[in-house]
């Protein structure tokens, strides 16, 4: 069956968000691109399995999630050296503060890569792709409480990095 042009366009429009999701899962640009490509291949081949009227984005996120899980299983233990990324290109006149922020963002990125896949999925869908907790729960097919607790745990893991920022250091409570 040939694909509806409108659906093709919808799928293409999802590309940036799927790439963010893939980036969160794989931790590297080239791996993310491979995963997105594979996700589209799978989606195009299985278009008859998508239920019209249901959310296309959720369906494609799930395909990406499954492909990624299978690829980890095939890798026999995931041990990737996370490259040191230079976050030292200040873009504004206030270079010092900008560079500080970039450095902290670099630390956050590294820490995100050490989270579990489940935590990363939730974090990207909510914090980067702007899904609500409920939408995320429906997409990942888990209870909303699970989404909340995964997100809270992911945030806790990232929390120590915040102490590097003088104005956001830990408070006594």
């Amino acid at each position, binding site marked *: *069956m*040939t*694909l509806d042009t409108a659906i*093709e366009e919808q*799928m*293409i429009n999802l*590309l*940036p968000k799927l*790439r*963010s999701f893939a*980036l*969160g899962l794989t931790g590297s*640009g080239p791996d*993310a*691109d491979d995963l*997105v*490509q594979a996700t*589209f*291949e799978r989606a*195009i*081949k299985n278009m008859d399995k998508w239920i019209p009227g249901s959310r296309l984005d959720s369906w494609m996120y799930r395909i990406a999630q499954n492909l990624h899980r299978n690829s980890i299983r095939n890798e026999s233990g995931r041990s990737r050296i996370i490259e040191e*990324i230079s*976050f030292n*290109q200040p873009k504004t006149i206030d270079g010092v503060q900008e560079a500080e*922020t*970039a450095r*902290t*963002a*670099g630390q*956050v*990125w590294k820490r*995100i890569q050490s989270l579990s896949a489940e935590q990363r999925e939730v*974090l*990207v869908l*909510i*914090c*980067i792709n702007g899904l*609500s*907790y409920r939408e995320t729960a429906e997409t990942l097919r888990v209870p909303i409480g699970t989404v*909340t607790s995964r*997100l*809270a745990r992911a*945030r806790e893991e*990232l*929390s120590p*990095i*915040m102490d590097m*920022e003088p104005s*956001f250091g830990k*408070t*006594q*409570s």
Partner: protein
Amino acid sequence: MSDISETDLMRLADGELPTHERLALEGIIESNPAAKQKLARLRRQNELIRLSFQEHQDELALARLKTNIRQQFKQHDRRAAGSNRAFGTALAASVAISVIAAVFAYMFGVQHADNKVDQLLAMQAMERSLRQETIETALETTTGGESLTWSSPTSGTHGIITPLNTFRSAGGRFCRELTVTTKSAMSEEIAQGVACRHQSGGWTVLTSQT
């Protein structure tokens, strides 16, 4: 921090609360410095998470993916549409090829055909370099949507180069989207692509036929 839970703060920072709940909670937080600080921290954390991803968003990679995926759609559609006609098309193609081959052999003989092939290759190489030069000139000199054309004096093959919008890649390089149309007596090809300027001043052009 007895009356405001961590989860409430997180939901507030993530825009999960309906307006009335949000306003009520913000009111309580206003008089609770510890909660206020925690909320600021959560919001800053969200910002840092977004920033950390932004550094890895790569327009060139996205554009490349987009072209590849459009290609996949085309292949899929062609395969789906072509499965019924495949036999007929293959038969017609083989008949046409046989006829052309026979005419060639009859008219020029085998040795002449070799020369013809050489000439054809040289002509194609010239067309490619003409096209390449025009692409570079167009990228350097035209505004978005404006076209430059080239034309081969020998074969009549000609082309249109149209750079579109200009953008800056995540790595800070200047890039332009472009379409490259090439028309010959036999065919018309339209390719879409992205060109990014590399450090030495030249352009890297990625195109995909549509």
